C-alpha cells in the first residue's frame, strides 16, 4: 500500500476534477456523495498504509514515494515526493477519516444550496491539499499543501460571498495566513542555504547530526513557527479564525477546527529535531505564545454569544495548548491533543451546525435553549464533545490535555510552572465556557419561541433556508448529518485510548500507543521527562486537572443553570480584548493612510517628476521662444552677441591667454 501512497491525494484530486467537469450535471446530492466517496477511498488507502507501516520494523517506518522531479535547479533539487511515516499516516488517517464524516454531514447541511457541487469541489480540493500537506516529503511539498488549504479556506469562507462579511473574512484569512507563509518561506530559504535541501530528511538529519549552527536551527525553527502561528491562528495572527466562521459550518468543522489549523502543530512536530537543535529559547517562545494564546482565547470565548464564535475561540485556545505542548517538547502530546481535539471539536462544530440547521440558520445562543428535547441526538453527541473538551475523564480531551500540562510543568525553569498555571487556568476557563454554551443551547428555557418570528434569515441566505417560516420549530437534522455526529461522539469518548499515559492503573499494553507509533519521528516521549518532579507526581497533577475541569463546570452551572450568580460577561471580552477591532482600525486608519500616502507619492512625486521634466522643457521652450521676437534687429543682436563670445573665446581664450 505504501507504493501507492499517492492515491491518498489522488482520490480527492479525481473527485475535484470530476466535479469540475461534471459537477453541474451531477448536481445535488450526487456530487456530494462522489466527493465523500473519494475521501473515503483516501481513508481506506491510509488505513492500508497504516497497517503496512505497522508491519515494518519501527525504525524503517518511513517510505518515500517520489512521483517526479518538481523544481530541479542545480543544487536545489525538489521532488514531488510523499513521505509515508507514522506521523504523516496518522495525520492522513484523521484528515481523511474526519474529512469523510464531514463530507457526509455537508451533504445534508448544504442541501438546497445553488452552489452545492461547487462546495464539494472545494472540499475535495481541500482534502487534496491537506493530504499533500501532511504527506509532503519536503518543506516545499508541504508548502504546496499549506497554501492549497489556505486557498481552499479562502474559497470556502467566502463561499457565501454575497454576504459582505463572508467575502471580507475570506480575504482576511488568506492575507493573514500569508503573513505566516512569509515565515515559512524564509525558513525554507534558510534551510536550503544551510543544508542544500528542503527535504525533511536532510534538514532534520542535519539538525540531528549537529551540523547546523544553533543560530541557523533557531532561525529555521522560529520562522517555521511564524508560519505555524499564521496557519494555526496563534497570537498575534489568530484574528482571522473567528471571522472564518462566516463559512458554512462543515467548513468550520473540517478546516477551522479539525485539520487545517492544526497544520502548524504538525509542521512543528515534523521538524522537531530542528527545534531540538535550536536554542532553548525557541521552544520557550513557542510554549509561551501557545500558553498565552490558550488563555487569551479562552477569556474571549467566555463572553461570546454566537454559537460558532465560542467554538472558534475555543479552537484557538486549544491550538494554543498544542503549541504549549510543542514548546514543552511534548510532541506526542501535541499530536495526541490534535487528534482528540479533531474528534471533539469537529463533533461540536458539526453539532453546532446541526443546531444552526435546525434553528433555520440562527447562530445566536441567546435565542436558543432547551434544544435537547427537540434535537436529542445532536444534544447527546454535543454533550460528549463538551465533556471531552472540558477535560473530564475518561473522555479523550482529558488525556491529551493532561499530558500537555504535565510536560509544561516538566519543562521546569522559570517558565515551566508559569506555563503550567496558565494551562490550568485555561482549563478552568475552557470547562466554564463550554458548559455555558451547552447550557445556553441545550438546557434552560427555550428562548427561540419568543424570537421565532423576529428571526430573520441573514442577508443573502434566503435561498438556503428551508422549510416554511410560518411555524418555526427547531428540528432534528436528517440522518446523514447525525451519522457523523454519532461516530465522532464515539471517537471523542474513547479517543484517549490511543495514548493513555503511564498511570499505574492503566494496563501496560494500552499505554503510550501513539508514542510508540510515532517514535521514529518523535523520539521525545514521556520517558524524556522521566525523573522530573512533575513526572513523579503526575497522578497528582492529573487529579488537579480534573479538579480544574470540575470547578469550571461547576461555576458555569451555578451561573447559567442555577442562576446563582448574575453572569459577568464584560464587553471587553466579548470584543476579544478589542484586539481584532484594533488591528482593523489600524489597517483601515493609519495603515490605509500610509498606503494612500504612497499612492499619492507615486502620482505626485514620482510621476510628478516626470511630468515636471516635460513641463520644464515646455516652460523653457516657452521662455526661450520669447527671444524669437520676429524682429530682425533683435536677431542680428543675438548673432552679434554670439560673434562677440566666439571672438572672445578665440582671441582671448585661445590667443592672448
Amino acid at each position: 500500500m505504501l507504493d501507492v501512497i499517492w492515491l491518498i491525494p489522488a482520490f480527492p484530486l479525481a473527485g475535484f476534477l470530476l466535479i469540475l467537469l461534471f459537477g453541474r450535471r451531477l448536481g445535488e446530492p450526487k456530487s456530494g456523495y462522489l466527493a465523500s466517496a473519494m475521501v473515503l477511498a483516501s481513508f481506506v488507502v491510509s488505513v492500508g498504509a497504516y497497517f503496512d507501516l505497522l508491519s515494518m520494523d519501527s525504525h524503517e517506518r518511513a517510505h518515500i514515494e517520489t512521483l517526479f522531479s518538481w523544481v530541479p535547479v542545480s543544487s536545489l533539487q525538489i521532488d514531488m515526493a510523499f513521505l509515508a511515516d507514522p506521523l504523516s499516516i496518522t495525520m492522513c488517517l484523521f484528515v481523511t477519516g474526519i474529512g469523510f464524516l464531514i463530507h457526509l454531514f455537508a451533504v445534508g447541511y448544504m442541501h438546497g444550496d445553488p452552489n452545492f457541487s461547487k462546495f464539494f469541489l472545494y472540499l475535495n480540493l481541500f482534502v487534496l491539499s491537506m493530504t499533500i500537506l501532511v504527506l509532503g516529503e519536503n518543506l516545499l511539498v508541504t508548502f504546496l499543501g499549506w497554501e492549497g488549504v489556505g486557498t481552499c479556506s479562502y474559497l470556502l469562507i467566502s463561499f457565501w460571498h454575497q454576504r459582505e462579511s463572508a467575502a471580507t473574512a475570506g480575504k482576511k484569512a488568506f492575507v493573514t495566513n500569508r503573513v505566516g507563509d512569509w515565515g515559512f518561506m524564509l525558513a525554507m530559504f534558510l534551510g536550503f542555504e544551510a543544508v542544500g535541501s528542503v527535504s525533511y530528511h536532510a534538514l532534520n538529519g542535519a539538525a540531528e547530526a549537529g551540523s547546523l549552527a544553533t543560530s541557523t536551527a533557531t532561525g529555521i525553527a522560529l520562522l517555521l513557527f511564524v508560519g505555524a502561528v499564521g496557519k494555526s491562528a496563534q497570537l498575534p495572527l489568530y484574528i482571522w479564525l473567528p471571522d472564518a466562521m462566516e463559512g458554512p459550518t462543515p467548513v468550520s468543522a473540517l478546516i477551522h477546527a479539525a485539520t487545517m489549523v492544526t497544520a502548524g502543530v504538525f509542521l512543528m512536530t515534523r521538524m522537531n529535531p530542528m527545534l531540538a537543535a535550536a536554542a532553548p529559547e525557541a521552544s520557550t517562545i513557542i510554549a509561551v505564545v501557545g500558553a498565552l494564546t490558550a488563555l487569551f482565547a479562552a477569556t474571549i470565548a467566555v463572553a461570546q454569544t454566537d454559537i460558532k464564535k465560542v467554538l472558534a475561540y475555543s479552537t484557538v485556545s486549544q491550538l494554543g495548548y498544542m503549541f504549549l505542548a510543542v514548546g514543552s517538547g511534548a510532541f506526542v502530546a501535541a499530536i495526541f491533543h490534535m487528534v482528540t481535539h479533531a474528534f471533539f471539536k469537529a463533533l461540536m462544530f458539526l453539532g453546532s451546525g446541526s443546531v444552526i440547521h435546525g434553528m433555520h440558520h440562527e447562530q445566536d445562543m441567546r435565542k436558543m435553549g432547551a434544544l435537547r428535547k427537540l434535537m436529542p441526538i445532536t444534544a447527546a453527541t454535543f454533550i460528549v464533545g463538551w465533556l471531552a473538551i472540558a477535560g473530564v475523564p475518561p473522555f479523550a480531551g482529558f488525556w491529551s490535555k493532561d499530558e500537555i500540562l504535565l510536560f509544561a510543568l516538566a519543562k521546569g525553569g522559570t517558565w515551566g510552572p508559569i506555563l503550567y498555571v496558565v494551562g490550568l487556568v485555561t482549563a478552568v476557563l475552557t470547562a466554564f465556557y463550554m458548559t455555558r454554551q451547552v447550557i445556553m443551547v441545550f438546557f434552560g428555557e427555550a428562548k427561540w419561541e419568543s424570537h421565532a418570528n423576529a428571526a430573520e434569515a441573514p442577508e443573502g441566505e434566503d435561498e438556503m433556508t428551508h422549510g416554511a417560516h410560518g411555524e418555526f420549530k427547531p428540528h432534528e437534522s436528517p440522518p446523514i448529518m447525525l451519522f457523523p455526529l454519532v461516530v465522532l461522539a464515539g471517537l471523542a469518548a474513547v479517543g484517549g485510548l490511543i495514548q493513555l499515559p503511564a498511570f499505574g492503573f492503566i494496563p501496560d499494553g494500552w499505554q503510550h500507543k501513539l508514542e510508540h507509533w510515532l517514535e521514529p519521528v518523535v523520539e521525545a516521549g514521556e520517558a524524556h521527562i522521566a525523573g522530573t518532579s512533575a513526572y513523579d507526581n503526575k497522578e497528582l497533577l492529573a487529579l488537579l486537572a480534573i479538579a480544574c475541569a470540575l470547578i469550571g463546570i461547576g461555576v458555569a452551572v451555578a451561573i447559567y443553570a442555577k442562576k446563582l450568580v448574575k453572569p459577568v460577561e464584560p464587553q471587553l471580552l466579548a470584543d476579544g480584548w478589542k484586539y481584532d477591532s484594533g488591528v482593523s482600525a489600524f489597517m483601515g486608519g493609519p495603515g490605509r493612510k500610509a498606503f494612500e500616502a504612497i499612492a499619492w507619492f507615486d502620482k505626485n512625486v514620482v510621476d510628478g517628476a516626470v511630468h515636471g521634466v516635460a513641463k520644464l522643457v515646455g516652460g523653457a521652450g516657452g521662455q526661450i521662444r520669447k527671444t524669437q521676437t520676429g524682429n530682425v534687429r533683435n536677431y542680428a543682436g543675438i548673432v552679434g552677441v554670439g560673434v562677440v563670445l566666439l571672438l572672445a573665446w578665440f582671441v582671448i581664450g585661445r590667443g592672448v591667454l
Partner: protein
Amino acid sequence: MDFVVFILASAMVIAGALGVVLRPNPVHAALSLVLTLFGVAVHFVALGAHFLAAVQVIVYAGAIVVLFLFVIMLLGVDKAEDLSIEPFPIQRPLAAVVGAGVSGLLVAAIVGAKDTIPEGTPLGADGDQNIRALARNLFSDHVFAFEFTSVLLIVAVAGTVLLTRKEKKGSA
C-alpha cells in the same frame, strides 16, 4: 605725409560711417556712405592699389550708391527716421556691446599679431604694374572664381526679374 593722408582718409571713412549710422534721413545716410567709400578709395590709392581704387569709386560710389538713392526715390522712403525712439530698450546697449566688442576684440587680435604678420616684397606702387599683377592673378589662380562671378550675376539678374516682374496670375 603718408600719415597725414592716412589720417584724413580715415577721418573721411569714420565720419562717413558714423553718418550712415546716425543720419536719420536715408538720403543723407547714402551720401555719408559715399564719403566712406571715397575715403576707402583714398586709402587704396595710398596703398598703391590703383585699380581697386578706381573700381571702388566707379562701382561703389558710382553704381551702388546711386542705386540706393534711386530706390529711395523710387519708393519715396526718404522719410527721416526718428532715432530717438527705440522700441526695444535692450537693442541699443546690445548694439554698443556688439560694436565695441567686435571692434575691440578684432583690434586686440590685430595688435596681438602685429609682430607676427610677415612682410613680403612690397608691390610696385606703379598703377600699371598693379593692374598687370591683378590681371595675371585673376586669370591664372582665380580664373575659375572670375568666371564664377558670372553665375553670381545671373542670380542677381534672374532674382530681380523674379522678384519684381509684374505677373499676371495664371499666365506664363
